[in-house]
């Protein structure tokens, strides 16, 4: 509260978009968002390991039930977006991890001591990790690298994976250009995934700062609705990030499992299944 009142003395709301360096180790500047990212990562790991030990057949309620519901929700989401549930189950742990990491980082970033509450040499001491483009870019790059590695493994080799970008024979110049454009479109997914998360979190922070400034003495009252909105947006963005990453992976993998039917069509002239590409048929042939 005292921090908020000091903030009002300024000419406008105190807005931070770029992270501020707090200290440096051997030429590497450690920024405030990285510090809070480490703290959150340790807290999330500790909490989730504790929850995993507490899980029982009969639900106990409380935090454990909340985590269970979340894990179940993402598990169903990932499994149902693949043609083959067994394939989907292999990638469930990664997406559950990503979901909880982003969700809890978004929510822990809304705590009052994160931001202008604690200062260290004209920078906030702590900033939300997802409110920093470097942080979300790291999450986005890691997610897309995982997606590419998984789709290459499922397709059975880098060249076979690249072949899926071409709708026809790559030696046809038109199909070649379309395929190369498709590849570049694919690369923009890293940017769009990380920018969406970063902008939503940062602009939420700015929104809260602006309304706390406008509220003047009644800052807690005016900022409260937007904090509640940000709790919703944080959950929604974690969900959107997870489902988009799942979609990118499932499109690549379902495409590769659908290809044997195309080969049948070209070689034998008659497709084995007309219009129906079930998981069972692709699985049986493999």
């Amino acid at each position, binding site marked *: 509260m005292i921090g908020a009142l000091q903030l009002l003395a300024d000419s406008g709301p105190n807005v931070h978009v770029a992270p501020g360096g707090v200290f440096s180790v051997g030429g590497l500047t450690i920024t405030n968002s990285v510090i809070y990212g480490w703290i959150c990562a340790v807290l999330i790991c500790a909490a989730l390991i504790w929850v995993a030990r507490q899980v029982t057949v009969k639900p106990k309620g409380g935090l454990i039930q909340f985590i269970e519901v979340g894990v179940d929700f993402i598990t169903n989401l990932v499994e149902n977006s693949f043609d083959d549930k067994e394939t989907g189950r292999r990638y469930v742990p990664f997406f559950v991890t990503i979901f909880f990491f982003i969700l809890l980082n978004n929510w822990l970033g809304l705590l009052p001591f994160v931001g202008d509450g604690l200062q260290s040499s004209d920078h906030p001491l702590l900033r939300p990790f997802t409110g920093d483009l470097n942080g979300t870019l790291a999450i986005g790059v890691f997610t897309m690298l995982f997606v590419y590695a998984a789709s290459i493994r499922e397709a059975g080799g880098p060249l076979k994976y690249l072949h899926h970008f071409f709708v026809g024979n790559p030696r046809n110049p038109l199909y070649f250009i379309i395929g190369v454009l498709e590849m570049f479109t694919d690369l923009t997914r890293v940017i769009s995934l990380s*920018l*969406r998360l970063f*902008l939503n979190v940062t*602009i939420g922070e700015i929104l809260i700062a602006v309304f706390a400034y406008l509220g003047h003495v009644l800052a807690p009252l005016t900022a409260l609705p937007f904090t509640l909105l940000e709790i919703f947006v944080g959950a929604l*963005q974690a969900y959107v990030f997870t*489902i*988009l990453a799942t979609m990118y992976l499932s499109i690549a993998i379902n495409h590769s499992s659908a290809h044997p039917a195309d080969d049948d069509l070209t070689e034998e002239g008659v497709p084995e299944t007309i219009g129906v590409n079930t998981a069972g048929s692709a699985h049986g042939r493999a």
Partner: protein
Amino acid sequence: MAIIAETVNTVIIGKGLMIGGGFIGPAIGIGLIGGSYMQAVGRNPEASKFLGQALIFVALAELFGLLAFASTFIVK
């Protein structure tokens, strides 16, 4: 033109136009998505299970408004 630039704070006008123009598109888009979703639910109540997919497209449309908002910090 130089007089206008000296007397009028063009930065504020530019930022206002960026915010207004940048937010109108996503607002229309999200309205269309929400309207279509409600229409679909009204026609077929079982369609309410696609709320998650509707929210994905809301997030996709929202990104461009946020990009416009973030770009206002570049204008000096």
